[in-house]
């Protein structure tokens, strides 16, 4: 049995994480990266977790080497969706290379029936029509996971500025009719603010999302190969803790919930009028991604030392 080197999650740590989930009565484990399929033991890890009766969800680009895909096909393609599922973030074909497209094609041909397509919105001129096509071609799950690129405090990454978010809303609404026509639903990932949509737009979205609209932002809990925990991807540099400091996922969640609550109580939401927002008070919207708030704090003169340490 080959174990992984230090850049990758080790077998022992995977077992610990699985135990940790089991103790927490959590039967769902999501594997992400980087690109999780690059892990030398990817297929073994997934098979192991499934053998332990976990539902495994893999976030992937769908770009796998032929060898890895062949291996995954051999061991995983017969799995039911109750045991294994994928989210494959599909970039627009225009910004993907032919090789990448070829590999994604092979992946979706093999695992399409287990895959939910996703799109990460990081520019305003986005398009989703290619995803609608892919759903049809590869028999993907008729649902699109819509993520919003959030800032990573302390790093320069491509995001849509807060001011431009209403324009993003408008652009997204332009696809609503197609979604309804093709009976494809969508779901927002975390950090989407409610007020960038008008009431009329919200009505349309309500129907297109099967009534499952969410404008929340909270700890998702990521675990790194070094067994460090953080609240979510944008906050991967903040309040990292070792998994060994906790006894259950519930404890971890409480820990990061407390931090989120504290930040939000001190910094409000991403818009100025978040402070007086009745929908935020009612819990309908969290006031956008917390990473924006931390970015704002970091760009200001600190008011208390604690704020700087976030």
């Amino acid at each position: 049995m080959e174990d992984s080197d230090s850049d990758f999650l080790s077998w022992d740590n995977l077992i610990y994480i699985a135990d940790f989930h089991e103790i927490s009565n959590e039967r769902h484990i999501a594997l992400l990266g980087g690109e999780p399929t690059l892990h030398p033991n990817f297929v073994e890890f997934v098979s192991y977790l499934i053998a332990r009766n976990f539902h495994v969800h893999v976030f992937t680009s769908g770009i796998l080497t032929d060898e890895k895909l062949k291996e995954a096909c051999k061991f995983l393609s017969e799995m039911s969706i109750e045991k294994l599922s994928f989210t494959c973030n599909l970039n627009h074909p225009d910004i993907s290379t032919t090789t990448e497209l070829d590999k994604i094609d092979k992946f979706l041909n093999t695992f399409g029936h287990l895959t939910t397509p996703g799109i990460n919105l990081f520019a305003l001129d986005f398009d989703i029509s290619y995803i609608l096509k892919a759903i049809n071609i590869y028999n993907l799950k008729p649902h699109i996971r819509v993520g919003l690129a959030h800032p990573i405090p302390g790093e320069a990454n491509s995001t849509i500025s807060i001011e431009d978010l209403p324009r993003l809303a408008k652009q997204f609404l332009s696809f609503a009719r197609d979604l309804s026509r093709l009976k494809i639903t969508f779901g927002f990932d975390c950090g989407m603010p409610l007020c960038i949509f008008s009431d009329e737009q919200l009505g349309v979205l309500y129907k297109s999302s099967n009534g499952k609209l969410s404008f929340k932002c909270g700890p998702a809990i990521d675990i790194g190969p070094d067994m460090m925990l953080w609240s979510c991807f944008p906050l991967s540099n903040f309040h990292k803790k070792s998994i060994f400091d906790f006894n259950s996922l519930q404890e971890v969640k409480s820990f990061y919930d407390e931090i989120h609550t504290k930040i939000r109580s001190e910094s409000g939401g991403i818009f100025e009028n978040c402070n007086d927002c009745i929908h935020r008070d009612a819990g309908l919207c969290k006031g956008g991604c917390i990473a924006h708030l931390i970015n704002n704090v970091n760009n200001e003169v600190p008011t208390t030392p604690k704020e700087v340490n976030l």
Partner: protein
Amino acid sequence: MIEQILVTPYNEELLEKLKQKTLVVKTDDQDKIQLIHRGVSKHNKLHAIQLNSPIALSSITFKKEWKNIPLCVYSSEFGGFKNLIPKLDILNKLNIRIFLSSDLKENFTGIRILSSLGIACGLFFGDRPIDWESLNDLMHHAIYSQTNHAPIEPFSYVASNYDTSEYIDYNFVYFNNATRYLHLNEKEQIALCYEDLINRNFISTGVESIESIIHKQEYEYHINSRYDVMLSMNECAFCPAFRICLGKFSEEDDKQNGCQVFFSDFLDAAEHFYKRKNNTGNKLWQL
């Protein structure tokens, strides 16, 4: 007195002479398992078949026909988990205990994998120096982990059988305690433990001599060999964890940082388990 179990190689002529005895039959050929089972079941009680596998665990072809055979597999290496994946279904249905050598670090992980998948397993001590820290980690996992997992030996045996007023010999796990197991070879030479068998240190010869062995002074000395450790005044005699180790690692170089630390932690863990088992809490009045 509990009837002693004979640990023997598979030899039809020998088995003929061992009628009515309870046996552990050893083989290194996985293809003979069903044959042995059929052969032994006729006139003997089969305690277990011990397969000393010359190949990695994951390369063994487990068969669904082994379902009702008490099996004990010894393998020097776990092998690739990938090879084991298609066999997990069958493995989970077998009456099996898998032992891997302490010589390979990967085996420690292999044992965790097996245990977490509900397959009873354990570690046997190989020839290379023991990685006491890894062993300690595995012991902690075996005893303290709150997840459902299959027993890991010898930790589970010690934890389950520990009693504050008894010495405990985990060699039972390896069919290697003369109060329960005697070892013999095809020439009917009998030894009190596996090491004696290998070193040709026999206590008697001939199947007919088996009954009289327990009356021999050598037998009494062997089963109470802990007194020899006490007499030798070596480091083991002064070790806090002697009661669960009984001086098995007396040749170890750096005991204070190696086996002594491990066995002291192991003793604490066994005691923790013992207290938990025996702590029934305050008695509630009966309805």
